[in-house]
């Protein structure tokens, strides 16, 4: 532990006005990139790299890190207020966050989201700082066999997220997995399910899947209802009893609601701690991807809850689990990027390029020669999260107005910008047609109570599972199951499925999730 370096790096950041100013600029940029569907942190990094070209190593790295650290916090805003997630992890937040908005608890959901993402980010950074000396041998021992089993563990959460429509959940999850196979086959290089279309050789992007399954169906539903959101009958009745105008009361985001949400985070402290550690640890594993980590956190939240039947209907723990997961993984994925030159996520792959451009050579020497940069980046994550929560809490009542926007205004803007996001991500106009077709199916899923979350999990984890399985079989044959870490993961998979089956036998009525 380099306590002196850690403290001097913190002091260095706090006493350098230029760095603080740059972080204060980077944070709203991160919120903007996160909250605009289709942009996201990766595109944000790509667009900001030219701006850091002339900066010194520390300034440039801190600026990019601060921007990237808060992207997911920004992504929670449209997820909660209008049910339109900006990316894969934000879709997990939309499940309960948007349901809370429908219950007239938008402010509480935003507060829980801001609080959980900040604490998740802080705990993730602490995890990174404290685990520096011990994680290296563990990370290096992970192989494709373990990646495959971790992906399978994530897929088992499909059952958890299927509610009482287990069969429907499994079908949608398997459909997501099938969609993940679109594109070039990793073993033979031949195209699969591409129908002779060159643009499908790159596969189905997660952004297209998320916007098709969530943004388009929500907007169609909004147009059919003709108003911003439906209050649940119980909430409408309660508001009517208290003599308040239902629409106005439910849409209002007050500081009181925000603090209520933040207080909820402290009441779920053990959940926050578990999700942060789980996700930061998963984020450390290169190649598994941050999207998967967030869904695993949400799956764990549902699985460990005493009331799984409440999830998907506006349970605040769902927002807390998903948001903690989204933000805690950033620190975890920074670790392999910095010390092994192996990016922990796709965003970190771009960050790696930026580090190299700035003259920072990732590798084990970071621990010896550039430990001050390492600690500065850890503190940048912490400070960016704190700046972000202060800015968002201050602006919350105005941000909340997004949720009370008239449906007729919301629909055309969301459709145009969601379709723009789909285009920008792949640069193919054909993605617009694909999102329309899949969005239609997504609306039918929503209309007839088919869970949509398993589809996203399938798309995210299908590719990872296939790539890793092929590599593992290529290296060890079928015996890869007998590696020690594999056995531990197999035990976890069995325990996860067993726990689900045990709980499914309980008489509680479990509704389906979005």
């Amino acid at each position, binding site marked *: 532990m380099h306590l002196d370096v850690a403290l001097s790096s913190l002091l260095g950041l706090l006493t350098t006005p230029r760095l603080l100013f740059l972080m204060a600029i980077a944070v709203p940029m991160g919120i903007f990139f996160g909250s605009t569907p289709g942009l996201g942190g990766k595109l944000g990094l790509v*667009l900001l790299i030219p701006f850091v070209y002339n900066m010194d190593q520390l300034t440039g790295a801190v600026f990019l890190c601060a921007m990237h650290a808060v992207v997911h916090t920004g992504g929670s805003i449209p997820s909660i207020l209008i049910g339109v997630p900006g990316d894969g992890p934000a879709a997990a937040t939309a499940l309960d966050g948007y349901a809370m908005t429908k219950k007239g608890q938008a402010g509480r959901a935003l507060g829980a989201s801001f609080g959980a993402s900040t604490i998740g980010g802080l705990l993730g950074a602490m995890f990174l700082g404290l685990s520096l000396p011990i994680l290296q041998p563990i990370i290096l021992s992970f192989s494709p066999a373990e990646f495959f089993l971790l992906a399978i563990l994530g897929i088992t959460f499909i059952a958890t997220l299927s509610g009482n429509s287990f*069969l*429907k959940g*499994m*079908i949608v999850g*398997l*459909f997501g*997995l*099938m969609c993940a*196979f679109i594109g070039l*086959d990793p*073993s*033979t290089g*031949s195209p*699969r*399910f591409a129908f002779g279309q060159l643009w499908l050789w790159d596969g189905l992007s997660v952004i297209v899947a998320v916007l098709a399954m969530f943004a*388009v169906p929500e*907007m*169609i539903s909004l*147009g*059919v209802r*003709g108003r911003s959101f439906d209050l649940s009958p119980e909430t409408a009745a309660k508001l009517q009893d208290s003599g308040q105008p239902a629409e106005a009361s439910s849409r209002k985001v007050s500081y009181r609601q925000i603090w209520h949400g933040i207080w909820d985070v402290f009441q779920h402290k053990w959940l926050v701690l578990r999700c942060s550690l789980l996700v930061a640890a998963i984020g450390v594993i290169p190649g598994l991807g941050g999207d998967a980590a967030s869904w695993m956190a949400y799956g764990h939240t549902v699985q460990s809850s005493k009331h799984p039947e409440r999830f998907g209907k506006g349970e605040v723990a769902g927002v807390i689990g998903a948001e903690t997961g989204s933000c805690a993984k950033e620190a975890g994925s920074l670790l392999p990027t910095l010390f092994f030159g192996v990016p922990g996520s796709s965003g970190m792959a771009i960050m790696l390029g930026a580090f190299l451009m700035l003259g920072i050579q990732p590798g084990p020497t970071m621990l010896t020669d550039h430990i001050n940069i390492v600690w500065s980046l850890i503190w940048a994550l912490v400070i960016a999260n704190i700046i972000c929560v202060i800015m968002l809490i201050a602006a919350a009542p105005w941000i909340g107005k997004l949720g009370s926007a*008239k*449906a*007729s*205004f919301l*629909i*055309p*803007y969301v*459709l*145009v910008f969601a*379709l*723009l996001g789909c*285009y*920008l991500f792949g640069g193919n*106009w054909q993605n*617009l*047609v694909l*999102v*329309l077709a899949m*969005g*239609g*199916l997504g*609306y*039918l*899923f929503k*209309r*007839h109570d*088919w869970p949509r979350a398993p589809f996203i999990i399938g798309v995210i984890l*299908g590719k990872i*599972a*296939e790539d890793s*399985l092929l590599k593992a079989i290529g290296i060890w044959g079928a015996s890869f199951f007998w590696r020690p870490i594999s056995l531990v993961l197999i035990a976890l998979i069995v325990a996860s499925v067993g726990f689900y089956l045990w709980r499914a036998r309980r008489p509680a009525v479990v509704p389906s999730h979005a």
Partner: protein
Amino acid sequence: MLEGRILVSGIMVVVFATAVLLAFTYAPDARFLPLVIGIPGLLLSCVQLIKEVRERPEPVAPAEERRREVKMFAWCIGFVGALVLFGFLYAGPALVAAYLYFSGREKWYMAVAAAVFAWAVLYGIFEWFLGLPLFEGLLFQWIFG
């Protein structure tokens, strides 16, 4: 009339059946996982379809709701069609204005103001500030090469 819930299950059966049939045409290595996933998917979809067919029919949605659904689907097709043909910079603001005026029943000046705002964001932020080239539309590509 075919019920929506049966339609969804039917679509899933067709999707999985097509995927499995296509997978059989691939090389053995390439078809392994699609078949491992596709065959159970097809079986489960068939079970779901049988369940849906056997269940009691759902009450039919009100005609007004069905009319609104058709209208929204038509708008979505219109959005994608216009963006693909005319690009984001021209079709985007026009669609915002058209939706607000015809569907939202807003005043014409509100629709124009919203369209100007959409154009300002599309051009100002995305094209000018961020330097992201926006899709110019197939029609303009065809005309101007």
